[in-house]
């Protein structure tokens, strides 16, 4: 449970698309997912724990995880001029 925010995060997992790789189970720091051995798919068991880090969303190979109600980080500063500076410094 996240204190200090009104984000109501809803996790949508397409279990028909899930390949059972368990990457989401491993990457989630707050144990939102468990692996259902009988069905060979991941399932969302503790949605309330979610902090909206989106690691599951990005790691899922068949992209079968989607999240609703998450406040997305603002990449305000991504501009072409910045990229030129980046290529010089990093």
């Amino acid at each position, binding site marked *: *449970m996240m*204190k200090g*925010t009104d984000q109501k995060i809803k996790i949508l997992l397409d279990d028909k698309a899930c390949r059972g790789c368990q990457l989401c189970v491993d990457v989630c720091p707050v144990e939102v997912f468990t692996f259902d051995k009988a069905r060979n798919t991941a399932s969302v068991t503790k949605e309330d724990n979610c902090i909206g880090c989106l690691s599951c969303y*990005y790691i899922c190979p068949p992209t079968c995880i989607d999240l609703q109600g998450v406040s997305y980080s603002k990449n305000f*500063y991504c501009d072409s*001029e*910045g990229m030129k500076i980046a290529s010089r*410094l990093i």
Partner: protein
Amino acid sequence: MADLVKERKKLQDVMMFMGALGQGAEKILQRSASVVGFQSGKAIGMEATKNFTATTDDLEKAVDLLQEALYGIGLDWKFGLWKKSDEPTYFKDEGDKWVSYMWFQDCLVRNTLFTYADKQEGALCHMSHGFFAGALERILGGKKVDLEILHGGENGCYKKLTVFKEKGGS
């Protein structure tokens, strides 16, 4: 609008410079770079909130006050305490310290540098932890605060907050 773009560009340039410094420090100092980042961030955190005089011993209230203090100096950094839904309280008493977990979103380091592949959980992240810890220490009247990163995600981070019962300074 033009002023805003100019200000963002200035900030981006500063953060690029900071990112380069952080990466250089990691190459030379290796793991010590995190400690250097944390301690320097702590000094900045204490200095930045020096005009915020409210203090409290209530840990949950202290985190709320910290958000207020940072907002007062123009920092809209979204964070809060976290617990499992079946746990009764946010803080656990572990003898000489209280421990809680926190979520962080819209972090300055991620928002400015993540798209340029600056590695998360590096010296610059530890500097922001130190900033948080220093500012919270001031609000808690000098109780030592530590913030440990447990997970650096693409859109948010999960961290462990430790508040020591004894006053310790840095």
